[in-house]
């Protein structure tokens, strides 16, 4: 079967390890004693866990809709433009930038004495009407989350725009045109034709957005280290720190928890949107 080689690899590198993780989640690291769900209890009660969950959830709750929304709007705008290809390519560029460079430019921009603060200060000086602007130390205050979300949007907007565009392109043009001839305004167009047609894309874009949220940990870690400001302390930070401290049992339990949640969410969404 075509599937066999791929699947066997997947088994080896993903499923089996995952099962191992599940197994470990019931053991204590170090002496491998069976401790039942004690690890889960430990994780559940861990303050860092609570914080990480809250932050990750918040990040997702803010980032995913924002990303999906912005990219959707952009794709709607771009749909029929001549410059579409160029603009989309331009928007895709951040995907090609290596994370370290993104981090470097980020540092230059958002440092307390960075360029953004500089520009904003100048602006506020010029426009006396506005209240004076005090330089913000972005990374060390709650603004850190704003920074993370913004850089997330920056990097992934192009990607999602393409996905939306693809979805839009698949819509039969005739129906739309017919509706327009019939006098439907844009809102109706959207509500009745486009939106339903995009439900599949919605699932895809949603999934991939979540995926990108998880992947963005890389940049966050590079900029802010293993123990960043508390608002941007995510689940991956927790996992990585536990890994480094060799607390594998907790890691395992957390992994299982996360996977279960993801699995449930995925399945639900899939069912709902199909």
């Amino acid at each position, binding site marked *: 079967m*075509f599937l066999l080689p791929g699947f066997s690899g997947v088994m080896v590198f993903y499923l089996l390890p995952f099962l191992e993780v599940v197994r470990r989640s019931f053991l204590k690291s170090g002496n491998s004693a069976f401790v039942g769900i004690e690890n889960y209890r430990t994780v559940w009660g861990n303050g860092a866990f609570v914080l990480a969950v809250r932050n990750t959830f918040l990040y997702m709750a803010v980032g995913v809709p924002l990303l999906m929304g912005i990219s959707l709007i952009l794709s709607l705008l771009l749909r029929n433009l001549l*410059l579409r290809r160029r603009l989309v390519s331009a928007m895709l560029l951040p995907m090609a930038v290596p994370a370290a460079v993104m981090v470097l430019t980020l540092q230059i921009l958002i440092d307390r004495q960075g360029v953004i603060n500089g520009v904003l200060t100048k602006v506020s000086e010029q426009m006396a009407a506005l209240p004076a602007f005090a330089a913000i130390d972005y990374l060390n205050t709650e603004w850190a989350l704003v920074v993370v979300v913004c850089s997330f949007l920056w990097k992934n907007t192009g990607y999602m725009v393409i996905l939306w565009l693809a979805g839009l392109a698949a819509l039969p043009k005739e129906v739309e045109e017919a509706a327009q001839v019939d006098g439907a305004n844009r809102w109706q167009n959207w509500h009745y034709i486009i939106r339903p047609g995009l439900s599949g894309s919605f699932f895809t874009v949603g999934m991939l957005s979540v995926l990108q949220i998880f992947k963005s940990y890389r940049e966050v870690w590079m900029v802010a280290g293993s123990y960043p400001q508390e608002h941007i302390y995510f689940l991956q930070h927790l996992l990585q720190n536990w890994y480094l401290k060799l607390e594998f049992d907790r890691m395992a339990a957390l992994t299982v928890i996360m996977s279960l949640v993801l699995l449930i969410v995925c399945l639900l969404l899939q069912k709902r949107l199909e």
Partner: protein
Amino acid sequence: MRSRATVPAWVVRLYGRWRKKRTAWFATGICVAVAVLICAPLLMIPGGSLMDGAEMRQILSPILGDGRGFAAWHLIPVYPTIGHFYRLLIESPAFYQLFWNTVGMTAAILLGQLVVGLPSAWAFAAFRFRGRDFLFGLYVVLMLLPFQVMLLPQYIVLQKLHLYNHPAAVILPAVFSTFPVFIMYRGFTQIDAEILEAARLDGAGELQIFFRIGLPLGRMGIQAAMVLSFLEYWNLVEQPMAFLEEQATWPLSLYLPQITISQAGFAFAVAVMVLIPALFVFALGQDALEEGIAYIGVKG
């Protein structure tokens, strides 16, 4: 739907066109603005790579420790220099070592994904079998799991297979990643089932169907998957960092974090070099990306 007003059709059409144009300009304006906004930080890179250390320190001095005033940036350096490029391209054989490491790693991964993932995607798309949906759902979940989740178990498996500290430790898991399968599957689902049925009825073997029909028709999806994979693995950081101890096997992405803000010019030069192949791939795969992904979003 409310009925339209009594306006002559041609007026409506003209008006519609004008509105479209206006809309178009408006839309263009916004999109261009967004595109510029997005590209702006990227413009720091080439400029920065030509900026010599003194100028860099000068404009970044508030960040570097001066603590007063704000950093500035010159999009075009006042005193451009190719010193960073010289240092990187002529004096750093380490860069090339890492470059070829990255090239090899990425190529191997892409190849492996083609060999392994392609048939898998075809299998999901072309056949019906028991547990297909569940398995596919599993694939999706696996695709979504962040690496940190897999960090430990993969480490264990790799240790058992004696692959730790070998490039294969990064390549093999990546080869079996389910993401390309996902993308390529989408590509394949666009193919009309009837064509396949017809081919089967004609007596073609499965392999023939795959090679003669599946591949050509699904190639957009394949290309898209390849481009996305390339972008993903060209800049891969976590897995090499976790599984490769021997510096000689590192990819370029690990070279960069060693350079700090005080060597920003050099870092930007490295970034330029890292971006160039990515840009090439981008350019090559652009249409495929655009059109290939058209197949992804259709069916949920």
